[in-house]
């Protein structure tokens, strides 16, 4: 029986090649998109799932209120770990991780920059990062030890047998390799090439016991049967007990299962996070698959007349309805199976591109039985969903009417079929409109005036001897003609590293807790960055040596402080006093989607990490960079020359939105493509059934254009209805999406017009081909055949 069904299924497929191709392509593309999206979702939901003790691992978070707003964040003081161990009996152990850092590893002449973290010795016992060599318990106890990944070991020594070997770190300390770790899985927040023991931090004098210094991550492993609630109750009162400075400051333990997907906090409460995207993408995947299924249903029912006779005969031959439902479902599962194989091929081919887009390293888990089971499940489910309507519809035919030939196109059928087309195009219109709005928002933000001049602006992080030799480096850069201007700053102009509510000035209200962006520069900041001064002057140490304690404000800061004559006024930051020498126009330091914050730029007395170099536009960029490299090599020979272009870094601020825009464009294109595939098949069929009518009309003198419009009109009506459904939904979703951007574009009426026209144009192009073909056909032929 099954074999018989299979056979007739195959013959039907081969007999109607065009129809089969449309069906299979549509389903395959739909399934491929669904597989890609589910791979992404799988990758997201399996974040940190490989840790054996994942159910007991927590991260310590702060919860404190500033300017009336409750903030939650996860950088906590170094002393917290000890306090937790002392006061929380529920805790088995704690482990800390410092901020990830890129440091230099050297073996002989070989030098490699690697990123990693300084962690407590318990790190490898809390988290499941297996050591290939070495003892996880003791590996991080030795102050002179270091754990490296297998890959780093191989890069350094050319072999994996590196346990006990010595490396030189940052050209200043020798370390012995005490453990070789496997490279961490990609779906973990810990992406290290090395782990340094906490003792190393202590040796360097970077360990502190100050409760106000939120500088590391504190992780907690609860005991097997401990209650998280009771541990959290104790966490709540921990900080006030030890830190008298901030008595209203609470802390809580945040479970590992929520780190990746839920850790977006607003007013101290979880407000979604990546889980929102997981949900959106899952919905989109299901929608695309559904649209492909709808195609299948539509085309199958449209062809029902051809299969009706077979149904009648089979019923007369004794087939029960169940037999026929089984046969048609079997056929659609078979088509889904072929489509499934094609989909896997599409996924294999498109995965590298998708990985680049999603910035992931996903792969199809061919080796896992679960994958094949899931794939098979998806295929069967798709086949059943896609085949259900045709199967039940076709099997309901009464043999008498079918065989007597009284069976014609049933008008009642048109309604569900129209409904299916409307569903498809509603989704398509939703996605098109969303894509246009997302693109518009992206463009709107990209076109926003940054307030500084990115052209030819580069920066380098100060490593090794660069700080020491800064003045020499600057002098040579200027003399060689490579640079037009050089300025040392606290952070790149594209990043906000420091902010504080501890800025004081005369007349500041005691409950004013305005948060200032804090930046520092030595001199010539306005020249190097191309800032517009609105009052006073730039830092100039050679002319005014006291500028080391001078301060520049942006206009927002001036407004906040309320000075009429700011120049010369004294502003305090903690213990340090600065005098204002100038005010510049606001520029975007942080997110281009937010209003600029009040900002203070403090003088040369402050700390510096970055050298900004404005390249001399008289020379070519390549030549200037070459000179820069030579100068850096000369004064900082132990470290490789690394530089960044400010404009490139600035563009990275849009990466997230860019990604959403690209993804939504792909989804929209796919939906449109699959929908059009279905529309094309449907139009071809509809036109074919009206051949006689068209022939008669032509004989009576109808023009080609009138027949084309006759055939196209019906479909356009459906598109119109779809627009009325899809557009408001898209507006609603996009309106909400835009609310998360304080600096946002407006959804204007012409966006709707554009979407409507675009969809109509695509639909006309799809349907029109068939319509024109039918209209151009010689009526004699069509009428003779009747």
């Amino acid at each position, binding site marked *: 029986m099954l074999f018989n069904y299979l056979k*007739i299924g195959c013959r039907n497929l081969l007999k109607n090649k065009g129809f089969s191709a449309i069906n299979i392509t549509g389903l395959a593309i739909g399934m491929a998109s669904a597989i890609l999206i589910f791979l992404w979702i799988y990758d997201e939901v399996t974040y940190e799932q490989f840790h054996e003790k994942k159910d007991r691992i927590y991260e310590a978070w702060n919860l404190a209120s500033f300017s009336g707003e409750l903030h939650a964040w996860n950088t906590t003081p170094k002393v917290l770990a000890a306090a937790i161990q002392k006061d929380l009996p529920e805790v088995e152990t704690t482990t800390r991780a410092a901020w990830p850092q890129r440091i230099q590893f050297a073996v002989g002449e070989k030098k490699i920059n690697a990123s990693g973290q300084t962690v407590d010795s318990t790190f490898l016992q809390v988290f499941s990062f297996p050591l290939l060599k070495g003892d996880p318990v003791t590996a991080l106890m030795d102050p002179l030890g270091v754990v490296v990944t297998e890959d780093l070991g191989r890069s350094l020594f050319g072999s994996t047998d590196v346990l006990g070997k010595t490396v030189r770190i940052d050209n200043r300390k020798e370390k012995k390799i005490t453990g070789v770790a496997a490279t961490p899985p990609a779906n973990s927040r810990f992406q290290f090439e090395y782990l340094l023991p906490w003792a190393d931090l202590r040796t360097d004098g970077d360990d502190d016991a100050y409760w106000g210094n939120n500088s590391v991550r504190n992780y907690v492993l609860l005991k097997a049967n401990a209650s998280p609630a009771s541990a959290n109750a104790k966490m709540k009162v921990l900080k006030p007990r030890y830190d008298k400075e901030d008595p209203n400051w609470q802390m809580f333990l945040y479970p590992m299962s929520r780190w990746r997907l839920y850790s977006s906090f607003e007013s101290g409460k979880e407000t979604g996070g990546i889980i929102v995207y997981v949900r959106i993408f899952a919905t989109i995947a299901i929608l695309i698959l559904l649209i492909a299924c709808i195609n299948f249903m539509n085309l199958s029912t449209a062809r029902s007349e051809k299969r009706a006779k077979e149904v009648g005969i089979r019923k007369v031959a004794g087939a*029960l309805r169940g037999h026929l439902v089984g046969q048609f479902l079997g056929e659609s599962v078979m088509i889904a199976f072929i489509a499934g194989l094609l989909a896997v091929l599409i996924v294999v081919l498109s995965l590298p591109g998708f990985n680049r887009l999603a910035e992931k390293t996903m792969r199809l888990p061919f080796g896992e039985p679960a994958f094949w089971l899931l794939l098979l499940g998806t295929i069967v489910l798709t086949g059943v969903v896609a085949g259900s309507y045709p199967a039940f519809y076709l099997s309901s035919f009464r043999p008498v009417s079918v*065989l007597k030939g009284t069976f014609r196109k049933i008008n009642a059928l048109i309604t569900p079929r129209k409904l299916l087309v409307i569903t498809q195009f509603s989704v398509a219109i939703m996605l098109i409109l969303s894509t246009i709005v997302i693109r518009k928002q992206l463009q709107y933000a990209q076109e926003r005036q940054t307030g500084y001049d990115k052209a030819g602006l580069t920066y380098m992080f100060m490593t090794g001897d660069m700080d020491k030799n800064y003045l020499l480096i600057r002098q040579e850069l200027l003399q060689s003609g490579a640079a037009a201007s050089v300025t040392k700053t606290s952070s790149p102009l594209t990043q906000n590293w420091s902010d504080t509510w501890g800025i004081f000035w005369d007349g500041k209200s005691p409950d004013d807790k305005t948060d200032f962006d804090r930046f520092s520069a030595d001199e010539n900041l306005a020249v190097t960055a191309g800032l517009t001064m609105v009052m006073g002057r730039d830092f100039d140490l050679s002319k005014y040596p006291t500028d080391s304690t001078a301060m520049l404000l942006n206009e927002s800061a001036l407004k906040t402080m309320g000075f009429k004559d700011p120049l010369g006024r004294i502003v305090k930051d903690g213990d340090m006093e600065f005098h204002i020498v100038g005010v510049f126009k606001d520029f975007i330091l942080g997110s281009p989607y937010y209003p600029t914050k009040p900002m203070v730029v403090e003088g040369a007395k402050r700390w510096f990490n970055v050298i900004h170099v404005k390249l001399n536009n008289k020379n070519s960029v390549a030549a200037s960079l070459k000179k820069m490299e030579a100068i850096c090599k000369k004064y900082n020979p132990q470290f490789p020359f690394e530089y960044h272009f400010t404009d490139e870094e600035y563009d990275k601020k849009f990466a997230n939105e860019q990604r959403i825009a690209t993804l939504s464009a792909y989804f929209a294109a796919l939906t449109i493509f699959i929908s059009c595939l279905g529309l094309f098949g449907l139009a071809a069929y509809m036109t074919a059934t009206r051949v006689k009518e068209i022939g008669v009309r032509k004989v009576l003198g109808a023009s080609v254009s009138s027949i084309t419009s006759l055939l196209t009109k019906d479909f356009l009506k459906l598109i119109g209805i779809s627009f009325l459904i899809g557009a408001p939904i898209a507006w609603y979703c996009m309106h909400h999406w835009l609310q998360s951007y304080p600096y946002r574009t407006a959804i204007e009426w012409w966006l709707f017009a554009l979407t409507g026209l675009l969809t109509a144009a695509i639909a006309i192009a799809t349907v029109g081909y068939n319509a024109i073909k039918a209209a151009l056909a010689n009526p004699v032929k069509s009428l003779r055949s009747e």
Partner: protein
Amino acid sequence: MIKLEHISKWVTNGGARVFLLKDVNLQIAEGEFVSIMGPSGSGKSTLLNVIGMLDDANEGKYEFLHEQVHLMKEKQRSQLYKQYIGFVFQAYHLIDELTVYENIETPLLYHDTKSAERKALVGDMLDRFQIVGKKDLFPSQLSGGQQQLVGIARALISKPKLLLADEPTGNLNSKQGEEIMELFKKLNEEDGVTIVQVTHSEKNAAYGHRIINLLDGRIEHPH
């Protein structure tokens, strides 16, 4: 075998009932060969379909092998039908996508016959109708007479007690028609298959043991 009592069937057209069958009473015994005649629209095919359980009557009783068909549910009726009745059509109604062999085999699939047995039964049937050489051809590659042979073979494969034929020779030339009629006669006499056929041709009707004349949905009784 078949007992129809006061069978009526109508369609409602613009509020008025149009009768397709009106108060039909008919008994057919096992082993009979009955021809139904009448002009177009007299209800011949409708009567055949009611007997064949492809169609319901609106009124009246229908007893088939002592079972009350008019009281049965769709599914029970299908089971009964599947077991005892074979159908032959004027337009053959073969499945275009299946070969001769597969067309004949189809009813057996729905009888849950084992594969080996199916092979034997279809083989016998091909032999008997002398179409072994055509078993891998598709319907479109056969002549009308050959197609009808396949249609009959298919109707007989499940060993029905009753064979219903709706103008089986209507699309055939007279020589082919005669062959089919001879075949029916042989089936009736040698295998004891009860046959009810609808026909326009007096000559073909004469093959039956008796002729039932229909006019406007009523049985005409000879005076």
